[in-house]
């Protein structure tokens, strides 16, 4: 689909509308996403068939994440201590540049040429594949979906199912062109081709990179979930394992992972558990015969501390990366993941990305929503996504001299004209006399509404006020002797 060798993640934000427009006009994309999202929604609903249990569990998930965030610095220190005691090397990075430098340092220390990567959205934030590729180190994706999109020089379009925008025919064609295998649309055969190629890569790799689903402070444990086995491969076969994660992924106790796991797998895929739950607490110990001899954890900030600083926005960090929000989003379903132009698409993408890259880079993100609330209703950790979108809109239109500076890039959609219009609207609506005049004019001059009224008439006939307002009709009716009880 794409001939560029590198897709910059931080593309110009104005293109959001252009990309959305293009996606909306692509029937194959629309069909693929509609079917996929419908299926994921149905699966989730079936997995949460008891509404009481579901809502209680969501509350518990929210409570556990809030507790962890309420003591985040303490838990991060405890995690660091316990991981270090277990033999894991813990690194901290404020920016993606720092994080990549740490990874490169480990790569160079081992003269590594081949890195194999399990699924990690944080590594996408880091653009690790390109960073290492530019330095002559192969960084290959091992998750089937990620492998497919990497082969096609694309970014993932969904955080759980990276190749969800592709159908089997497209994958078959891709494998045929890039791997030289016979064209097939048989999914089992395609998976076996991937298995064969990647098995050799697991075998050869110098370093394995993974993400982390939950980092447990109590025991110094990294918990990873997956269905394919690539996560166990990359964290188990190569002599060095580097895990990368955001600073918000820590949970206090091991038992906290029990409800969070249940929420994660049921919300994401409608399954009671993933094929593998992989809990890593250290490198190979004396006497053990396999496992990496070195395990590293890179803790990345990259703007999360900005979200953390504001108690309302801090809730963004509850996220356990299940993808349910995008599965239920009517906007995401229609424009797909690539239209967002950033690492995280969908509702979570809209509320986290402004912290990662600044609002100025993604000024349309907060507005790309009808605030329908489907996302907030399904979020397993009760992030109030619509409220956060509204808050980000507020930040977006703040005047440059506004006293409270919560975010990088705030005021990126500030417009004096728009502010003037809303001030006028407020003046009108808080003054009964003005409002009455406005109502009179709107109704009496209704036939003067032109047929084309900006973006509204793109999708609708011209709006025509009624001949008389409710104010008038009600006043008349309620003051009639018979109408007034």
């Amino acid at each position, binding site marked *: 689909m794409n001939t560029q060798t590198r897709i910059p993640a931080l593309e110009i934000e104005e293109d959001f509308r252009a990309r959305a427009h293009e996606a909306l006009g692509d029937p194959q994309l629309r069909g693929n996403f509609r*079917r996929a999202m419908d299926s994921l929604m149905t699966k989730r609903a079936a997995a949460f068939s008891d509404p009481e249990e579901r809502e*209680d569990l969501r509350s518990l998930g929210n409570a556990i994440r809030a507790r962890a965030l309420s003591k985040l610095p303490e838990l991060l220190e405890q995690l660091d201590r316990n991981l270090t005691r277990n033999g894991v090397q813990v690194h901290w990075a404020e920016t993606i540049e720092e994080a990549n430098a740490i990874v490169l340092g480990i790569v160079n220390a081992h003269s590594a040429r081949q890195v194999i990567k399990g699924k990690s959205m944080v590594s996408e934030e880091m653009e690790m594949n390109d960073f290492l590729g530019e330095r002559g180190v192969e960084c290959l994706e091992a*998750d*089937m979906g990620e492998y497919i999109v990497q082969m096609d020089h694309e970014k993932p379009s969904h955080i759980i199912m990276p190749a969800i925008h592709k159908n089997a025919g497209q994958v078959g064609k891709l494998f045929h062109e890039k791997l030289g295998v016979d064209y097939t649309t048989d999914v*089992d055969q395609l998976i076996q081709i991937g298995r064969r190629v990647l098995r050799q890569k*697991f075998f050869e790799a110098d370093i394995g990179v993974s993400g982390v689903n939950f980092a447990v402070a109590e*025991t110094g444990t990294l918990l990873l979930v997956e269905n394919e086995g690539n996560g166990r491969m990359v964290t188990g076969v190569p002599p060095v394992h580097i895990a990368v994660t955001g600073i918000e992924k820590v949970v206090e106790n091991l038992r906290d992972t029990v409800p969070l796991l249940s929420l994660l797998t049921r919300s994401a895929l409608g399954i009671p558990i993933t*094929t593998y*739950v992989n809990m890593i607490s250290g490198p190979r110990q004396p006497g053990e015969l396999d496992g990496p001899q070195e395990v590293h954890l890179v803790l990345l900030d990259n703007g999360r501390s900005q979200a953390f600083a504001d108690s309302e926005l801090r809730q963004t960090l509850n996220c356990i990366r299940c993808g349910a929000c995008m599965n239920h989003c009517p906007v995401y379903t229609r424009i797909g993941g690539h239209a967002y132009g950033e690492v995280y698409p969908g509702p979570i993408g809209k509320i986290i990305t402004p912290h990662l890259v600044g609002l100025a880079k993604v000024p349309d993100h907060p507005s790309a929503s009808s605030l329908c609330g489907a996302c907030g209703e399904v979020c397993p950790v009760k992030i109030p996504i619509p409220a956060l979108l509204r808050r980000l809109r507020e930040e977006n239109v703040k005047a440059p001299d506004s006293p409270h500076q919560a975010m990088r890039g705030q005021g990126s959609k500030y417009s004096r004209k728009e502010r003037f219009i809303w001030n006028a609207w407020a003046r009108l609506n808080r003054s009964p006399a003005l409002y009455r005049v406005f109502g009179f004019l709107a109704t009496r001059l209704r036939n003067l509404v032109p047929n084309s009224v900006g973006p509204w008439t793109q999708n609708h006939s011209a709006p025509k006020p009624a001949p008389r307002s409710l104010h008038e009709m009600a006043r008349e009716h309620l003051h009639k002797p018979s109408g007034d009880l």
Partner: protein
Amino acid sequence: MSAKHNILAKLRGSLAGTTPIADNFNEALVTEPWRYAPEQRLAQLRKLMEAVHTEIHLCSEQDWPRRLAEQVQARQLLSLLIAPGTAHGQRVSEHWALHPELPPLKAYDRPIEQWKAELFNDTPASFTGTLGAIAATGSLIIWPTPQEPRLMSLVPPVHFALLKASEIYDNLYEVQQRQKWASGMPTNALLVSGPSKTADIEQVLAYGAHGPKDLVVLILEDA
């Protein structure tokens, strides 16, 4: 100042004057909906595991090595990797010694660096024990050890696992409590709930992605 210092300082600054939220766990919620009568546990486990293509055979304490041999032969496997130092590995060795027609046993008795190519390319099946299983999710509990390293249950395309029915727990919370996980985790701990799978292409489920294509569980009915 280091990144660690800067990050922690920012976070602390943001929490200035606040009190950490007290423990708010809900034990009932993660146990009560996930409790089974003892006689139901096995059925629940089977239902969930078989739904994702796990093959399950019920055996007795006496005849499970013979049943294992049957399965190995039925699949025409050319060898079987075991951990001879374990009790169940011993039983296999003993049974195999009486049946020379069976394909050879391999032992995972040296570091992987010494035989990685053979493990990847020429080891069609493995046999491990388990630390029990979880009925609520249909999961085997596997804690790799020096005798039974983690790659045994990952690299060979066919994985045979031995489970005692008496060690089937109701739910993960119960497992963590009764096996006291929080007091010390091993290098690697695993829950394995079926053969490897993926739905990454058009949401169509395909088995045998990177992990084993076949998971065969021999359940000792000793409960």
